[in-house]
């Protein structure tokens, strides 16, 4: 390793996306991201999707450096094509494993991929039998620390929302319907909006369902209730 | 190495039913070298109130002098024995007066008040008091002690049970903490007497 190489690595992220919130429901997974990429605290790029459809079973959402994610999209696409050559569709578990190894290897070269990835999908136990499919959410941090969850909020959302989402999850558990899950996500976006200065009110909810496959969300907008803002004067 | 672990030493106190136990090890070192093996870190303040000072022992000595000075003044002025609650408040004040150049010692107070209710507390170097109902530990072996005490402490222990629990805790701690050792001294304070026992532990 050359002494100057560190200048050419993502040791500081440039254009970043913030929280990703994902939640499992009965037959699939819903994923919410807002549609802004920030440069520091500036909302630099609007109307950018932070979700990437891999195939009909897998959807990836990211937080962290946008350029690194573009690079990752390319890598993932190649991997998907590689599987295609053997007539296989990559599943979420396999992709999660692959990306874990990739991110860990990059970390070991001291050249990290500055992303927190949320791999959402439906794992097909048997090919073309939707009955046996199970929803899957896997998270990978930039250092290659990977785990599976039923619900997740990354980025600043990890501090703000994890508990809120978990509480909702515990009420219903596996029996959560899609509408309920989406309502939880919308509510939690509202919460990030109030507290996270780089979160945006324009967002999209993508989903992976056992029967419908990946459905990318449409752009939506919430305003929230700002009446309390007048009373918040920070007391400084 | 931090100044807090320069001389080493550990103090623990446990509360029981109308009794408290306070124990310390006997070692003083200069980092890895042991230079004394008979130094109690627990000091008598009144008949039923004891104070333990862990951390840097030079500062601990100075602080002890100051504590005794203030306590004597209090007793002269008020003409009554000091309660452990009052003493801890006094030490806390003393420590916080030196907020930006603190004494490197963590004080611990254990005693019975005038109704023989047990009182134990510990504080950090700048006098933030924590007075739980079960047990407190300060010094280099703090973490080791808290783990063991958590398993040994029971509600409303009698003096002999309390002594056993405290002694077992500090002995287990001395087994693992290299900066404390050379035996332990345990004070069991009850309403009509104080029992002092010196226990042999790992002598290294």
């Amino acid at each position, binding site marked *: 390793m050359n002494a100057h190489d560190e200048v050419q690595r993502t040791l500081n992220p440039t254009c970043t996306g913030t929280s990703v919130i994902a939640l499992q429901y009965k037959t699939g997974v819903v994923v919410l991201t807002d549609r802004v990429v920030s440069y520091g605290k500036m909302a630099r790029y609007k109307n950018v999707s932070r979700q990437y459809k891999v195939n009909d079973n897998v959807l990836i959402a990211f937080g962290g450096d946008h350029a690194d994610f573009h690079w990752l999209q390319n890598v993932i696409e190649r991997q998907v094509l590689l599987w295609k050559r053997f007539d296989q569709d990559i599943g979420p578990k396999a992709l999660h494993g692959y990306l874990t190894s990739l991110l860990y290897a990059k970390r070991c070269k001291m050249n990290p991929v500055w992303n927190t990835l949320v791999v959402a999908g439906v794992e097909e136990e048997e090919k073309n039998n939707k009955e046996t499919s199970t929803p899957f959410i896997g998270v990978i*941090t930039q*250092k290659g620390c990977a785990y599976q969850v039923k619900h997740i909020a990354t980025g600043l959302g990890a501090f703000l929302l994890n508990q809120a989402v978990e509480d909702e999850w515990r009420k219903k558990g596996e029996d959560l319907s899609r509408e309920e899950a989406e309502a939880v996500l919308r509510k939690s976006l509202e919460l990030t909006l109030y507290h996270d200065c780089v979160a945006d009110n324009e967002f999209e909810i993508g989903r992976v369902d056992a029967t419908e496959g990946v459905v990318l969300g449409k752009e939506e907008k919430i305003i929230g209730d700002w009446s309390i803002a007048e009373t918040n004067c920070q007391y400084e | 190495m931090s100044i807090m672990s320069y001389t080493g030493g550990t103090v623990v106190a446990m509360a029981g039913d109308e009794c408290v136990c306070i124990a310390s090890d006997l070692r003083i070192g200069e980092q890895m070298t042991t230079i004394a093996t008979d130094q109690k870190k627990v000091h008598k303040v009144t008949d039923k109130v004891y104070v333990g000072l862990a951390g840097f022992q030079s500062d601990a000595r100075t602080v002890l002098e100051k504590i005794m000075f203030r306590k004597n003044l209090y007793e002269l002025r008020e003409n009554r024995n000091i309660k452990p609650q009052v003493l801890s408040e006094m030490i806390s004040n003393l420590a916080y007066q030196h907020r930006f150049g603190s004494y490197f010692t963590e004080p611990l107070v254990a005693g019975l008040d005038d109704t023989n209710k047990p009182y134990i507390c510990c504080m950090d170097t700048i006098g933030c008091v924590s007075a739980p109902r079960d047990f407190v530990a300060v010094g280099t072996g703090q973490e080791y002690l808290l783990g*063991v005490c958590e398993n040994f402490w029971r509600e409303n222990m009698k003096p002999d049970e309390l002594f056993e629990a405290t002694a*077992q805790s500090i002995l287990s*701690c001395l*087994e693992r903490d290299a900066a404390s050792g050379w035996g332990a001294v345990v004070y069991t304070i009850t309403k009509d007497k104080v029992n002092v026992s010196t226990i042999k532990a790992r002598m290294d």
Partner: protein
Amino acid sequence: MTSFTGITAVANATNEMAMFKQAMKEVAAHPEWMSSRQIERQRWNPYSMEGGSTCAISGENFAIVASDTRMTQNDINILTRDAEKIQILNDNIILTTSGFYGDVLQLKKVLQSRLHKYRFDYRSDMSVDLCAELLSRNLYYRRFFPYYTGAILAGIDEHGKGAVFSYDPIGCIERLGYSASGAAEPMIIPFLDCQIGHVTLSEGYERPELTLDRAISLMKDSFRGAAEREISTGDKIHLVIAEAGKPVVVKFLPLRED
């Protein structure tokens, strides 16, 4: 002939540019206005700690391994309440690790593939003693970029006896009766010293042999105590019981979740 200087001029210019670029790179890599400590602080840290504790106890014909299932970020934020820190490598080898979870996963993967290769080559499962040595070598292989993990390997050895091997991050190995690692290690170890090691008992007293039931209840106690005081330990106890000649049993027991 001497009047033609075009090429040397260009060569000089390129040379100067190259030198300038080199100087820029050097100054960017080692800015003179920053002390080495400042540079060190700004360097990206490849490690992170995900907290949690693990513990293993061995007896005459059994070995039990336990860990909590909490994974934390910065010791305050719970990432997940059911992380797996115990890997059952085969019928008589159990690996449990705490520390940096990326390394935990990698270590698991490395050992699994090594064991797979062994099975392929020798057509039998590896014994725990061999695996212990293997793990030590694998940890030391990364001496200068260590796996940031406190590993414990437990299982039933060739003679049907319980075995626990404890490691430091760079592969120092020791066979012990019991061991703990992770955030609550200093809280669990002295308790086990007292209850299993009988270190506080005077010489000449009878030291009863450890039974499986007692080992399990001690394990539960030590984790409950640790969860009480240590914030990155909690949620669930993942308990794995290996007994000689019996299949491995896995249990989950509740712990406090705050």
